[in-house]
């Protein structure tokens, strides 16, 4: 693996290898007081974030540090980007300064792909940490890791993704990865929050959350961004919450084994009730924990292994 840019088109064998490595890393580190492996000593990893982020940036930083890489954080607000430097020049500067891997988050769909093109010659690896409304592949990998832990295999499991699919890179990455790993995906959202042409994706679509819940093995709630609430995509937050929120009443419709996921940050009371988020069915903190191991595994496959095998 040279880059991790998208789950669309990602070889399921490669995805599985990353997930297996994440499992191994998790068990290796389990109960250790000093959580540091020497694997990436001397390698330099730069996080380049053009959007605000707490969990993803911190997760990548911890992942790099636990692998003993030198991790440098660049954020758009405190860099030459503020002086009008182009993405291309910023990327080439980081590569010339010695970055082995650039982890990028950018508001433009396709930005990570462009970066990989510009950095083909220096040979720097690129990880997409979220590009516009396109993809967020490490989020999908950590979701898959969490679901594998709870459910065993993903094969023939039914996963509902609920909420603002239109603007969600988490949803796009999950749709492709879950389908590649053999799961069935059902999207549950108001028609205004589904992309035009959604039927071309490997999913089924529903507007009735109550009808879907009894048959799913997991439900993934998506965040509703504040700007969407005022963008005319639905009449009111209240109506949205009533139709598509995961309330305590709704949780009871789920099978006992079903898992509740949320990529965070959560709007408690809006798309998910507090009691549901904090219930045993919820795997939300496990998602964060697994995020570190999955990102360690991604860095390992990009920087330390020849080929895809661990």
């Amino acid at each position, binding site marked *: 693996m040279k880059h991790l840019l998208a789950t669309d088109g990602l070889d399921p064998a490669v995805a599985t290898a990353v997930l297996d490595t994440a499992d191994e890393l998790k068990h290796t580190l389990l109960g250790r007081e000093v959580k540091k492996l020497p694997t990436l000593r001397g390698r330099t990893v730069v996080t380049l974030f053009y959007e605000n982020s707490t969990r993803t940036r911190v997760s990548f930083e911890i992942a790099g540090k636990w692998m003993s890489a030198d991790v440098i954080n660049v954020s758009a607000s405190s860099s030459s980007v503020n002086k009008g430097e182009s993405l291309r020049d910023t990327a080439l500067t980081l590569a010339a300064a010695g970055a082995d891997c650039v982890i990028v988050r950018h508001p433009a769909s*396709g930005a990570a792909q462009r970066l990989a093109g510009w950095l083909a010659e220096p040979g720097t690896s690129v990880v997409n940490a979220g590009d516009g409304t396109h993809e967020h592949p490490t989020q999908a990998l950590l979701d898959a890791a969490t679901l594998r832990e709870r459910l065993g295999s993903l094969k023939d499991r039914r996963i509902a993704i609920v909420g603002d699919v239109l603007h969600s890179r988490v949803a796009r990455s999950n749709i492709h990865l879950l389908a590649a790993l053999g799961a069935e995906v059902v999207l549950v959202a108001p028609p205004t929050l589904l992309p035009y042409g*959604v039927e071309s994706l490997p999913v089924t679509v529903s507007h009735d959350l109550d009808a879907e819940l009894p048959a799913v093995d997991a439900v993934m709630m998506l965040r509703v961004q504040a700007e969407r609430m005022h963008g005319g995509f639905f009449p009111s937050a209240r109506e949205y919450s009533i139709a598509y929120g995961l309330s305590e009443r709704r949780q009871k419709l789920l099978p006992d084994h079903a898992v509740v996921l949320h990529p965070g940050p959560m709007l408690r009371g809006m798309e998910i009730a507090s009691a549901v988020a904090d219930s045993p069915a919820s795997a939300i903190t496990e998602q964060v924990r697994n995020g570190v191991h999955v990102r360690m595994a991604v860095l390992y496959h990009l920087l330390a292994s020849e080929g895809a095998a661990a």
Partner: protein
Amino acid sequence: MSTLIKGARPYGEGDPVDVLVEDGVITAIGAIDVPEDAEVIDAAGQVLLPGFVDLHTHLREPGREDTETIDSGSAAAALGGYTAVFAMANTDPVADNAVIVDHVWRRGQEVGLVDVHPVGAVTVGLKGEKLAELGTMANSQARVKVFSDDGLCVADPLLMRRALEYSTALDVVIAQHAEEPRLTVGAQAHEGERAARLGYTGWPAAAEESIVARDCLLALHANARLHVCHVSTSGTADVLRWAKDRGTKVSAEVTPHHLLLTDERLATYDPVNKVNPPLRTESDAEKLRTALADGTIDCVATDHAPHAVQDKDTEWTAARPGMLGLQTALSIVTETMVRTGLLDWRGVARVMSERPAEIGNLADQGRPIAVGEPANLALVDPDAEWTVRGAELASIAANTPYEGMRLPGVVTATLLRGRITARDGKIG
């Protein structure tokens, strides 16, 4: 001064003939002995067409002379077989007054490679709020015949109605960039399966079709002439057919890139493929070809849009929309329309010269190849092929989506009022 074109086939029809041009006029057609002092172009059976007319060119002067000037754009036009181009108004400053349009017109005449007809803005500063002085521009030295806010839509229906009504007294045409702005907020790519997958904000076909339908209704009501810029969707072709059938004075253009390219290009993430309106689907491109062939769409216009490297070699959303077109138009039309059997060369003359000259109200362009007619001509080798290299094009900018593609149809000579402006890929 005389030029003899030996052995050309006008409109690609019949046996090769010689065409004699003297003092800018075609004076004889037939078997002609080479007159003394005549420059000879050996056409060797190539296709002779009336010089092309482009209703839609961005020459970027004044304002962005780092990407194109009237000089460099005129050279690109001549090399592409054009004898007249209409330079769009969205320059900086905007061509919304007689001073700017006259400057553009005069610069074009000074350069002398192609007639540069400035397009005037419909509204002051392209702001869509207040009509520009259409009458003053129409009566200026530049004799502006086409008005457009291209790049932006005259979205306010009342303002568009007034512009159409007002234009009827001036015998000019309003050319609309049909894009409903509320339906295209943040739009980046054709709203379809590919954009959905790649997470691009969609530019729905209905945002074009609804404006075209509205404007056709307004034009009929005002008995005004409407020209629709860069038709990009199958649905717009349907609307145009309907409007024409009920007597609307509407004409329309299609760009070469919408005839050839599709939103399949989105997967490259390379903004060289970003253009407004966006590249659509295969079925749209197919429908546009048949609509051009059957006259629903009147003509081909390039929407030649030079952009600097720093405005294109970026992430998709940061890039400016547009692509070069003047030097590749004939080849794309050859590829998509001639080789497919949809148009013969007489048809090419119609869509690239005659109809655009009529729409732009140019009396001396798009004329028949006949004795007594002005010698505005393009000679085309239909069998030759060439490989597109952006850096080798005459434009200052190099943003061609056809980089590295091998294309059929080569313009071997262009004559503007008898003067050879381009020959064998070099400026005359």
